[in-house]
């Protein structure tokens, strides 16, 4: 059950143009840096990307936007990125905005084999347009569907050769949910260890959900908003 591949290029080698990808991360926190670089190098296009954000101009999914690789972006917040704005305004890029919790829960629904769930967010707003509304216990909810995703690409802190994953801090965010939702799930990790080294009680994503794993060459882990207190 060894799922280790040589590196990012091998991990993404069969992702075709036109595929639907889930990409983990919140802002630039916890994004699969190495796989994104490999996708940029590979040059496939017409991709549909499901990710909470779209990176910044020169990092993360922003790099794929620079190369016009993305046809459609499904996200909750996309405002950090001039090239994104340009492509959206010219109509080159299709954008579907989804409330953050709904985005997360629709990923979870996929990994849990639930085709649809009822959620509150967006009731009474333009997000509700065209969606089924149902009342439960006096409150209205929207019927929200699970996502269909060809590949999920996530970065974890630690992983083992069987694909078990552990995340660190707020770099966890969407990544476990997406890892569970991919038809094929690719995990890059900061530390790859032999099976048996991770505490089986502490695993966030069991290896059954992960198809390929490798240790990333290098992590820049860029910070978007460096906020600090002065040392006195």
């Amino acid at each position, binding site marked *: 059950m060894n799922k280790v591949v040589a590196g990012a290029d091998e991990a993404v080698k069969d992702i075709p143009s036109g595929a639907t990808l889930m990409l983990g991360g919140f802002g630039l926190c916890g994004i699969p840096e190495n796989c994104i670089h490999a996708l940029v190098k590979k040059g496939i296009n017409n991709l549909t990307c499901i990710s909470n954000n779209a990176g910044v101009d020169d990092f993360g999914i922003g790099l794929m936007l620079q190369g016009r690789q993305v046809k459609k972006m499904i996200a909750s917040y996309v405002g950090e990125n001039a090239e994104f704005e340009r492509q959206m305004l010219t109509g080159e890029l299709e954008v579907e905005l989804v409330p953050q919790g709904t985005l997360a829960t629709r990923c979870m629904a996929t990994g849990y084999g639930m085709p649809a769930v009822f959620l509150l967010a967006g009731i009474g707003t333009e997000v509700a347009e065209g969606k089924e509304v149902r009342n439960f216990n006096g409150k209205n909810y929207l019927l929200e569907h699970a996502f269909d995703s060809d590949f999920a690409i996530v970065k974890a802190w630690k992983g083992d050769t069987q694909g078990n994953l552990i995340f660190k801090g707020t770099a966890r965010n969407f990544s476990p949910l997406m890892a569970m939702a991919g038809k094929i799930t690719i995990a890059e990790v900061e530390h790859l260890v032999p099976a048996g080294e991770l505490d089986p009680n502490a695993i966030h994503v069991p290896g059954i959900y992960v198809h390929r794993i490798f240790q990333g060459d290098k992590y820049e882990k860029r910070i978007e908003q460096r906020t*600090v207190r002065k040392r006195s």
Partner: protein
Amino acid sequence: MALNKEQIARRIAQELQDGFYVNLGIGIPTLVANYIPHGVDVVLQSENGLLGMGPFPLEGDEDADLINAGKQTITTVPGSAFFDSAMSFGMIRAGKVDLTVLGAMEVADNGDIANWKIPGKMVKGMGGAMDLVAAAKNIIVAMQHTNPKGESKLLPKCSLPLTGVGCVKKVVSDLGVFDITPDGFRCIEYAPGVTIDEIKAKTAGRLIIADDVKEMIV
């Protein structure tokens, strides 16, 4: 004189009760963390996956894997816990978060809120705002009473696309504190130096003044 942002934050901090779990939005709401009253023990939730958010790190201690929902580097306090985004919004939807403090572009006198989209301008997305306003059990809005043109942002009806319907419970603006009631905005406090007449003039939505209205203590 109208309150500054720090004063708005300080007034909202008075709403915190011991034992509260609180989600603070970006902007003025973030500042509320600086004014938590002594003896009041609250846990801050960050919707990107953390309970037990602490202050900004000391210079050099920043960790790229530890940010808040505004993507700022932060720290944790003892007893913190990390979780994924589905659980994070799950606990909000399930009513486990006692108080959410948000900014707004407009609030209507029935509690509607608009804070995510200006038609014709670049749309950045709603992020977690729609989830928070739809699901949080107690929502306080921190906002300027008027826009830069001097027009009221407390309206009979929002003109901008809604973020949520009938969900705001209270507004703390630079001019005063307003409960949302079936009769509209109910002014319960005015900022020091602000007159009721000024509040009336600058509030476009239905407004009632509480019998026991008093000057805000900030």
